[in-house]
């Protein structure tokens, strides 16, 4: 039959590669691989596992963000709100919600469910309002909502968020397997599981009917409406899915870091996500993963570099910039935008085709 279609002949190679990568990452805590300069120590050490787990969570967060931006063309400046909602939501529920007669594990599970539902309601509310406008206005409304969240967290209403000090995880009802340095391995596996789940959900959404409509909406919204489809519905769907994924990642972040700091609710944090996605390559799903991991490891290692003797011995002109990891990352980002429009993931394509491609160009930043 000649009616063969693109998604039917799913290439086996990427699937096998993906499975191998996940298996490889899963056995990492059992191995003793040392990558000097990149990782702080051998892969079985808690410090390295903590860093890798953090990198995977950031990659998962970036994946969801990329789905909004790259698939549906929604440039949100407020994604941090949902990440923070996950982290703070779970933290506050665990602290506040504790019927004494319930077993700890049940409280833990119910807290997660409560946070998820809360996040879902928040995402639907913010999305329903923000999606009534498009382009820059959409970006600004999401920024505003996130800013409101950030302000609330800092103001520490009723002592619930811990204000500038941040919130520390109340471990009373957290399963003991997820607590403490000795269990970093488990937290690492949890982070890997979150990354895999987020990846599969994103893949599912992108390949679903709604995903196709979202891609079409990004390219020509009026044309979609003329077909009798309502872009608002699919955009809201993508927004809510991405936001709920951020809530999930936020919860894992709280467990991994044993707390949350108000920094994760700021506009800067969303901008960092944008940096990660662009750094990795907007046009590619695995670009967000690569971007997230590269960014986190760079950030961490550059901080280590900044504190190193080698830098301390330099003259001030070099020492001051080199001791600021964000300065180097920011500069690197500017260079990538200027000279490497496809991001890191776009490199093979660029080398193959030898021409510059701008994955961002299909989308225009105009007001509706």
């Amino acid at each position, binding site marked *: 039959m000649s009616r063969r279609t693109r998604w039917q002949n799913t290439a086996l190679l990427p699937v096998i590669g993906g499975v191998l990568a996940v298996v490889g990452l899963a056995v990492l805590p059992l191995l003793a691989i040392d990558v000097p300069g990149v990782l702080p120590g051998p892969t079985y050490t808690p410090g390295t596992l903590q860093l890798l787990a953090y990198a995977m969570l950031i990659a998962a967060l970036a994946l969801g963000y990329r789905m909004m931006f790259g698939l549906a063309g929604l440039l949100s400046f407020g994604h941090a709100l949902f990440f923070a909602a996950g982290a703070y939501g779970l933290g506050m529920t665990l602290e506040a919600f504790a019927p004494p007669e319930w077993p700890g594990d049940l409280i833990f599970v119910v807290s997660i469910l409560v946070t998820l539902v809360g996040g879902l309601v928040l995402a639907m509310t913010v999305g329903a309002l923000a999606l009534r406008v498009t382009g820059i206005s959409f970006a*600004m409304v999401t920024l505003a909502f996130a800013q409101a969240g950030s*302000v609330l967290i800092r103001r520490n209403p009723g002592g619930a968020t811990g204000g500038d000090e941040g919130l520390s995880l109340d471990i009373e009802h957290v399963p003991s397997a997820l607590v403490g340095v000795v269990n970093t391995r488990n937290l690492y596996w949890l982070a890997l599981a979150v990354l895999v789940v987020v990846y599969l959900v994103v893949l599912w959404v992108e390949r679903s009917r709604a995903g196709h409509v979202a891609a079409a909406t990004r390219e020509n919204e009026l044309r979609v409406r003329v077909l009798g489809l309502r872009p608002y519905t699919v955009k809201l769907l993508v927004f809510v899915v991405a936001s709920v994924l951020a809530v999930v990642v936020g919860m894992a972040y709280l467990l991994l870091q044993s707390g949350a700091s108000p920094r994760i609710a700021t506009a800067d944090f969303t901008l960092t996500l944008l*940096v990660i996605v662009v750094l990795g390559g907007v046009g590619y799903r695995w670009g967000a993963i690569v971007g997230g991991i590269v960014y986190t490891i760079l950030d961490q290692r550059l901080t280590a570099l900044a504190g190193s003797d080698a830098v301390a011995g330099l003259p001030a002109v070099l020492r001051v*910039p080199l001791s600021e*990891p*964000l300065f180097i990352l920011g500069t690197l980002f500017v260079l990538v935008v200027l000279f490497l429009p496809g991001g890191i993931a776009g490199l093979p394509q660029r080398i193959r085709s030898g021409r510059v491609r701008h994955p961002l160009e299909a989308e225009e*930043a105009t007001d509706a």
Partner: protein
Amino acid sequence: MSTVVLLVITGLGLGALYFLVASGLSLIYGLMGVLNFAHGAFLTISAFLGWEAGRRVSDGTWWGLAVSALVGMAVGALVAALTEYFLIRRLYERHIEQALVTVGLSLAAVALFEGIWGTDPIYTAKPEWLTETTEILGARIPNDRFLLIACALVVLGGIVLFLHRTRYGLIIRAGVENRQMVSALGIDVRRSFTLVFAIGGAAAGLGGVLASVYYGYVSAHLGSVLLIFAFIVTVIGGLGSLTGAAVASVLVAVLQQFANFYLGGTGDLVVVVALAVVLLIRPRGLMGKVA
């Protein structure tokens, strides 16, 4: 009554600061479609260098403040013009990437400022009169508010005169409407891009120095805080509209003051709600043009 007067005048003073930042943002967006995230960094570098210059000349005097203001404006204009020339221009008409470059620049700049001047606020000295108060209708108004309002009015008047009385102003006004047609009349519209960046940078630079007077300190994050409110003001006023930015600056700042006083310090939240409401009712902002 005296509370109301105090809140209004303090609101006007804060609104003046917002306007100094928002005017440049709005002009840049209107003419070039660039959302400039680096605008806060222009403000911060101007505030730091203005303060460095002022304290070397004469700390805490009018003379020192004047030097600070002049240096701040010059630094703001220069840094902004260089940014446009070396970074933004390379990405001609690619608006999202232009915004991204300014995001990267602002992240890098704030980090660099922290490296140079540290993460803690540096407290600044100001002329004695500015630390005193004046009584109006029973309200004791800190004098620095008057300085802020006066400066913003001068800047607003200056920009309006420039836009309406000079050829470059004419080009900029025409360019906000239709850039392509301006080039099709034989005018190098890119030169006005640099100019608009420089003007916006100068206004932000002055804003930086005045912000250090208002808050009493300079810090690496001075610009980031003001930038968020300037964005909100710009959007509420209508992207690209200078009058809109001026009106919205005052509205937002006064609203913020009143909410802070009467609604238990919820000023920031109320402003955010106001933004959401305005955008949902009038997506183009108060004075935004019909597309």
